[in-house]
């Protein structure tokens, strides 16, 4: 358990995270740019301190996990803070290291870095229950009808992607392992699921973006960063990967795949690779500020980090 905590802490520092969402399709585009439409949190207003996870609902409300004050916050479509819940602790509705967030229907799903499970809240931020999970969660996607997809950390065995029902029972699972550099943390990944139920997986420390069927068959695997060798650093006598490749993957409403590059991209934590559903690179663009994650809502607004986590920016995605 202590080793797991060390690894999770290492991951936290290495990337500051990954998560996911849903869509389908995927047509031809040549250029993607962003137009800022909303900014939440700044140097003076004390709304956000180190946001980690973001999710949105159909009404345009924005939900944000904040690791610095151990909270879950709800903002209106105009960016006004509507509600705040949570505090430091290990009781119901409390956090020690809040991390991933997803929204589906009336429910919000949140993870805590060192907790084996998923906290469920309603949209008014009332804590409802904890869904058990057999391992620590690296990535989370709400699939609708109460199902969840999680990427879990492996210790003795490789990490895997699991689909859980509303009670945490495993419905299906597959291991998106393969390629070079097997080892501790090498299976750290973010994931997204499209309308057909197929998964996109982006590896944090491997130059690999992959598409998998829900049955666990790999459809394609792509590399974009020219990684020749996985660099490592020694942490408590263990060689852990040190250079991030892909920090997050998200899908827009048309099924285009947006992959956020990490340290190895030209503009670290800012370059976004836009792929079609076959993995062809359609365009790249650069975020104004480094981010640890990407979120795209059902109306094709993209959310990313600014000011090292005290600001969340909302952008309109412009396709040419």
């Amino acid at each position: 358990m202590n080793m797991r905590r060390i690894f999770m802490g290492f991951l936290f520092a290495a990337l500051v995270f990954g998560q996911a969402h849903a869509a389908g399709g995927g047509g031809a585009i040549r250029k993607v740019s962003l137009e800022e439409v909303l900014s939440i949190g700044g140097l003076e207003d004390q709304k956000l301190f180190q946001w980690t996870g973001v999710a949105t609902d159909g009404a345009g409300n924005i939900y944000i996990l904040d690791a610095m004050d151990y909270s879950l916050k709800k903002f209106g479509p105009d960016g006004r803070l509507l509600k705040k819940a949570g505090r430091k602790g290990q009781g119901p509705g409390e956090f020690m290291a809040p991390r991933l967030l997803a929204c589906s229907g009336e429910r919000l799903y949140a993870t805590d870095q060192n907790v084996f499970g998923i906290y469920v809240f309603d949209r008014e931020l009332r804590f409802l229950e904890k869904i058990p999970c057999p391992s620590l969660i690296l990535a989370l996607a709400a699939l609708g009808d109460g199902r969840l997809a999680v990427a879990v950390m492996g210790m003795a065995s490789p990490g895997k992607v699991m689909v859980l029902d509303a009670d945490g029972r495993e419905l299906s699972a597959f291991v998106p392992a393969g390629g070079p550099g097997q080892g501790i943390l090498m299976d750290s990944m973010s994931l997204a699921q499209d309308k057909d139920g197929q998964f996109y997986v982006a590896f944090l420390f491997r130059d690999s973006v992959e598409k998998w069927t829900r049955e666990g068959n790999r459809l394609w695997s792509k590399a974009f960063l020219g990684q020749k060798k996985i660099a490592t650093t020694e942490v408590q006598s263990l060689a852990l990967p040190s250079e991030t490749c892909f920090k997050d993957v998200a899908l827009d409403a048309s099924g285009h795949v947006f992959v956020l590059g990490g340290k190895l991209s030209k503009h670290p934590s800012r370059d976004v690779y836009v792929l079609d559903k076959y993995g062809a690179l359609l365009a790249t663009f650069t975020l104004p500020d480094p981010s640890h994650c990407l979120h795209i809502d059902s109306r094709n607004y993209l959310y990313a980090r600014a000011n090292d986590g005290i600001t969340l920016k909302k952008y309109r995605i412009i396709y040419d």
Partner: protein
Amino acid sequence: MIEIGRAGRWARAVVCAVAICLPGARCGRPGAMHPAPADGPKSMGLVLVDVESFFCGACLEPLLEFCRAIPVRVQEDRLRGILVFGAGPSSEDVEIRARIVAAKWQGFSKANGIRFPAFADADRAFRGTLKTGAAILIFAERTRTVRWYPFPLSKDRLEEVLRILVD
């Protein structure tokens, strides 16, 4: 204890400047656990916090333990913090980075019940001084000495710091 000389000449100069600027003998009411300090010049403490440790709960736990042990009034009147930070994730200038760090501290300190104010090390004078996530520099009024206590503090060291601060 480690000699302050390890912090470098520039840091020493800044320490002295900060020490002079620290609030004087305003403490009067008793703390939660310790008797009220006597009137007159008071010992002071400068808590140095490595902001990168914000990402590591285990690294910060010694600081939080320390804060839980220090009475609120002593924290407010006798302690000030320096937030030590490295390069940010982007090329934002140091001034902006310092303000970001200070803003983060607001949320963190409030959520953890830390009552001493802290200031970002905008000139980066203290960079490289912390080998662990935090340390405290004590200006002991009675002996007119400066003492350096890297965290985590042993029980004895914590008692010593407390004794000096409420002396």
